[in-house]
């Protein structure tokens, strides 16, 4: 509730909200019992406070859940929130993954520049400045790559959390996100480690518990999460859009949610 209050204050001040927003998966529980049906909400928002997004075939490229070696589709009803349902069949970790189709977005120049600053994408600002495009509105296509870790029966074993889904941009835990301290994650962009990307970790119930770390040359980030609870780890990348897409940039939004 404190976090929502902070967001409201920010909205009132027209501060950081008016740009492109984060995307993540929020299951009804991160610690289901084996056999339990978990409703899986997709959220768009800021500061780990987000609107639920109904399921839309227009948006979804893949929406799957991995349990052990198995991967199956997350089922749901079109235009309904929650967007999907997952029944956990085995103890241990299972990972829900969502990959969107590209979607167009336009932002005015000031909002875009503010967004670049907030998301650690200053290098794009520099490129725009070199091209004398700082005042040019942003025309982009955005992609969402969201993952969420369920821990059935509180048993942290048996997981394949370190196996990529193969998304274009992806956050891959290298240690168990539900238990390991510190948590190490790796950023992969088109299958290769991504260096120098800003990674932000947010605690759902404590707005002050926030980490901002850049990935090292191997794309790795070490996060000393200061407390237990529900966490969102996210990173945004911006790359030039291919010709013929009617956009200047492609934004790639990766997120990972879990409870520890």
């Amino acid at each position: 509730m404190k976090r929502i209050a902070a967001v409201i204050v920010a909205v009132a001040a027209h501060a950081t909200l008016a740009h492109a927003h984060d995307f993540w998966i929020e299951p009804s529980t991160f610690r289901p019992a084996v056999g339990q049906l978990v409703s899986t909400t997709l959220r768009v928002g800021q500061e780990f406070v987000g609107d639920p997004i109904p399921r839309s075939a227009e948006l979804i490229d893949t929406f799957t859940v991995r349990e052990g070696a198995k991967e199956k589709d997350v089922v749901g009803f079109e235009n309904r929130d929650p967007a999907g349902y997952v029944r956990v069949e085995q103890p241990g970790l299972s990972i829900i993954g969502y990959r969107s189709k590209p979607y167009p977005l336009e932002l005015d120049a000031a909002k875009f520049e503010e967004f670049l600053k907030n998301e650690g994408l200053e290098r794009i600002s520099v490129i725009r400045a070199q091209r004398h495009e700082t005042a040019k509105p942003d025309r982009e296509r955005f992609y969402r790559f969201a993952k969420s870790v369920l821990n059935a029966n509180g048993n942290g074993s048996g997981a394949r959390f370190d196996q990529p889904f193969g998304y274009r941009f992806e956050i891959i835990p290298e240690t168990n996100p539900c238990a390991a301290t510190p948590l190490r994650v790796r950023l992969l962009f088109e299958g290769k480690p991504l260096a120098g990307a800003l990674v932000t970790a947010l605690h759902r119930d404590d707005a002050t518990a926030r980490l901002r770390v850049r990935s090292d040359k191997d794309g790795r980030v070490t996060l000393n999460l200061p407390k237990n609870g529900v966490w969102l780890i996210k990173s945004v990348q911006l790359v030039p859009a291919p010709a013929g897409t009617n956009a200047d940039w492609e934004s790639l939004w990766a997120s990972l949610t879990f409870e520890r």
Partner: protein
Amino acid sequence: MLALLVAATASAHEIGTTNVTATFNRDHTYTVDVASRSPLVRGQSAKNLLDAAEIRFGGVRVTPELQRLPDGTIRFHGDIPKNAGPFTWRWTLTFSYYALTIGPRQQWLDADSTSTPFPLSADLLPPSRMDVVRQYLILGFTHIVPGGLDHILFVLGIFLLSTKLRPVLMQVTAFTIAHSITLGLTIYGLVSVSPRIVEPMIALSIAYVAIENLTTSQLKPWRIAIVFAFGLLHGMGFAGVLKELGLPRSEFLTALVTFNVGVECGQLAVIGTAFVLVACWARTRPWYRPRFVLPASAAIAATGIFWTVQRLL
């Protein structure tokens, strides 16, 4: 449908669960209903919700009243300002894309963006004071002439009592004061008498003044009191009509007063016409009372009694 809309959209976030419907009503009020499952809305204070809803007419922000409907919808409502410019809407408690519906039209808004201005048709705008004055004067007048034969007959009954001006003026004044009192009291809800009582009593009052005209041409002291009492009844009748016509919220008192003035003008028109047509040259003639006043009063009395019975049935 949704897919089509998405495809047609140039740029936006994902579609969320927020749905906004704006309605402009004939009573010159607006209603904006926000249905949302956003956590930003849940449990939010009234102040925050009011801050988040930017309702503007011609760029001027209005302060709506807030109501929470049982299904969780948040309703903002208020009066459309006078000379209101186009309506715009902005809602800051969502991150996603949502539809704003105004009548048959729909526009899609991304997060906290402002809607395109929606011009209001002239009949939705509150009338100006001069419009109200003109409209309710006419309504009041036409309620007597030609609309209110019962009131015309009552006024003629008053007029036929005497050939002198003073008794007529005194009765008319008593009648006017009385019906003004009950018109106001009834409209404001301070007095409430069923039309099933008021309407037969009005008919009976017509019969009474006409019958008294048959017996005397003198202004008896009780006649003033009785006319006053009947005036109270007629006022309730006027109020019934005025309630059916409706009063503009923005100019309630103006409408009430001018309707009453219109009624007054109607009555004076009846008396003035009668005076010019009949009394001006006929009242000094010896046949005026036996050949005109008495038969006319008898006819009015008969009509009054007929209506009394009819309205009682």
